[in-house]
Every structure is written in C-alpha cells, then in structure tokens.
C-alpha cells in the first residue's frame, strides 16, 4: 500500500465531490417533490389513486437502478421520436439522464417511506384538525405531513445516504464524479487499491456527514431524547386507561 499515492489520489478525486453532491441534492429535491403527492395518493383509500402509484413504486423498487439508468440513457436515446423532440436537449446529456433515473428511483423509495409515515399518523390528530374546520389540503400540509416527516426521518436519512452511494453509478454513463474520476485514475496509474480506497474514504466522509446532519435535524425536530422517554410514559398512561 502506497500511502502517498492514496493521499494524492484523494486530493485528485476531491474534484469529483461537487458533481457527486450536485447529483445527490438535485435528485433529492426532485425526488421529494415527486414523492410527497405520490405518498398521499398511495396512502389514499381510493384504489384508483393508490394502485397506479403502487405499480410505479413496485417496478422501480423491484429492478436494479443500473438497469433503470441504462433504459433511460441508452434505451430512450434509441427512440427517434425522443431524439427529435425537445426532451433530447436534456436526455442527450448524461447528467440529466442520471438525474432523471436517480430522482425516479429515489422517489419510489421515498414515496413508500412517507406512505408509512402518513398512515401511521394517529386519526385523532386529523380529527382535531377537522374539528377546527381545516380543509383537507390544509390538514395534509400543516398536520399530516409534518408529523409523518418527523416519524420517518430515520428511514428518510437512510434513503438520502443510499442516494449518495447510488450516484456512483453515474460513472457507467461517462460522468466523472468521484467514482468516474477514480476509474479514470486507475486506468492511468494501475493502482486500484489506493485509488478505490481513497474514493471509499471520500464517500464515507460524505455519508457520515449527512448521517450526522440528519441526527441533528432529528433531535431538533423531535426534541431531546429525555423528552422522548417522557412522551412514551404519557402514551403508556393513555393505554393504561383503556381506550
């Protein structure tokens, strides 16, 4: 193991961090925008609303992201109609293809995570909002979503970290983010050990940083752990009184 090479390649690979982060956050935002309404549809008791969303999440969660990326990148590029349409301006660029694939894939997972959170919101919270006369949209926006979001925050944090890792697949469609740069570097130096370890260290740094951020966010939104135990005691009391 050549430590000097490891360190110098870390510096070289660091120039891929902005693209990795850009891919991550852009797909994160797009995925979230997509997932929130879909999650409400998925949680709906109306079959014609929930079933199409289920089909979408089932297919995107049941197939590898790599295949999805290749369908979007190579598959759509094959269709003449798409190549001659306005869409091609975006799909021509590997970055937008990745963004599309990661957003759609991430949204499928996020939808299911939020659906769980939405369905777990106690009916009492919703009834209390109905009782003051809030509209269904107000209830979703101000009551259900904030409560659901807090309860699914740990799962959502995992999903965000998965997304960071998923961006490494962008290297398969020629993008030079951290993984792409490291593969390029390996083909120039023939030192796979040092370079891939350097890449791994960078990713680990990013994921740990994000995990830390979400931990802080969780504490901030859900209160201190001490408050949590108190909350549990209250719910126990409620149960003990036999609802």
């Amino acid at each position: 193991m050549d430590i000097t090479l490891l360190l110098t390649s870390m510096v070289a690979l660091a120039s891929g961090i902005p693209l990795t982060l850009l891919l991550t956050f852009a797909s994160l935002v797009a995925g979230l925008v997509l997932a929130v309404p879909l999650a409400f549809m998925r949680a709906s008791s109306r079959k014609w609303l929930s079933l199409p969303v289920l089909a979408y999440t089932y297919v995107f969660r049941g197939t590898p992201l790599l295949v999805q990326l290749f369908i979007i990148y190579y598959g759509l590029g094959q269709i003449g109609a798409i190549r001659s349409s306005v869409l091609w301006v975006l799909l021509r660029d590997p970055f937008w293809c990745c963004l599309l694939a990661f957003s759609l894939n991430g949204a499928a997972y996020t939808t299911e995570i939020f659906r769980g959170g939405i369905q777990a919101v106690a009916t009492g919270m919703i009834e209390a909002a109905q009782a003051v006369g809030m509209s269904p949209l107000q209830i979703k926006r101000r009551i259900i979503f904030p409560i659901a979001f807090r309860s699914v925050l740990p799962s959502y944090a995992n999903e965000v970290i998965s997304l960071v890792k998923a961006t490494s697949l962008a290297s398969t469609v020629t993008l030079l983010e951290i993984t792409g740069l490291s593969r390029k570097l390996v083909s120039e130096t023939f030192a796979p050990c040092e370079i891939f370890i350097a890449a791994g260290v960078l990713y680990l740094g990013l994921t740990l940083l994000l995990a830390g951020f979400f931990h802080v966010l969780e504490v901030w939104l859900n209160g201190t752990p001490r408050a949590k135990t108190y909350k549990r005691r209250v719910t126990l009391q409620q149960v003990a009184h036999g609802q």
Partner: protein
Amino acid sequence: MDGFAVQFVSGLKTTVLLALVSGALGMALGLLAAAGRLSRWRVLSRLVGFYTTIIRGVPELIIILLIYFGGTVAISAFFGRYVEVNAFLAGVVSLTVVFGAYTAEIFRGAVLSIPTGQIEAARSLGLHPWQTWLLVILPQMLRIALPALANQWISLVKETSLISIVGLTDIMRVAAIGAGSLRAPLTFYLAASALYLTLTSLALVIFHLLERRFAVPGR
C-alpha cells in the same frame, strides 16, 4: 433475439447463483458480526461497528471495484504469486461483505428488541448462555428480523447487477451485450428489468410465506 434467450437463461442462472451464495454467506457473516457487536468484549464490538459503518457508508460499486481490481493485486502480493480473482468470486466476496454488514445491523436491532425478561426467564430456568441464544434469542430474533431481511434480500438481488460492470455474464451483462450487438438497448434492458422484477417478486412472495409461517401471534 433467439440466441439471446439462451444467453438470458444462463445469465439468470448466474444471477440467481450469485445472489444465493452471497446471500447465504452474508447472512452467516451478519449473524457472527451481530454476535460480535453485542458481545461484552469491547474491542470486538468496536471492530464490528467499524466494519458495518464503513461498508454501509461506501457505494457498493466502489467495494466491488476495489475487491475485483484491488483484490487481485493484494492477494497476489500476499501469496507471492498471481491468484486470479474472477468476476464471480469478486462478486461473491463483495456482496457477502455488503450483505453481512446490513444483516448484522438488522440482527442486532432484532436481538435488542427482544424483551430482557425473556432472557432472564431463560437464565432462571437454568439454561446455558448458548442454550439461551440458540433456543430463546435466535428463533425470536429471526422472526422479528424477517421483514427487514426481506428488504435486504431484494436489495441483494438488485445489487448483483453491479457485478456485470466487472465482466460477470449475468442478466445485466447479457442485456448489455445484446443491446450493443443488435443495437436495441431498449428491448434488452426492458427484458432484463422484467427478469429482475420476476426475481424480486419471487423473493417477496417467499418472504411473505415465511412471515406467515413464522408469524408471532399477537405481535
């Protein structure tokens, strides 16, 4: 496309074999790691903690590339002669390492969610610690872990596709070869999707049956 049907069948076999071998090994590794993580021996617990944190924080693709390309170099240096790490072996090793890290966390969580009273009850019956583990903790833990395990297995099936990047002729690679040589990427990748979807659905069904079979009444 006819010739590719045969190739898809062999690719399917490779994918399934890869998933089953690395899944079985990974679960064994995960069990050991969970036991190590929960052990009173601090150093061991820390080490396992490092392992799971690092593996879960690094993209699978990097781990695969490292083991495939780096593994050859490292192992060869170790044995003082060339040892070939083929794509299948690299795939098994890397997916085992990854699967082990995730299942270790699942098993650990499951063990921790078993009420301590149960363990105390087993102790008070005079069971040996290992008997307690085998008879009380393990069966319950597996049951609790089942839903999360199902998810992890489905992830594993999908992750096998990454091994195609280092040249394993699995479903994904057959699709890539077909996509290139017949210039029909959409057809071939959609076919690959269908195969993967079938596999993950199958895994889902199996785990549903298992869950029903081992359901804990009242839980």
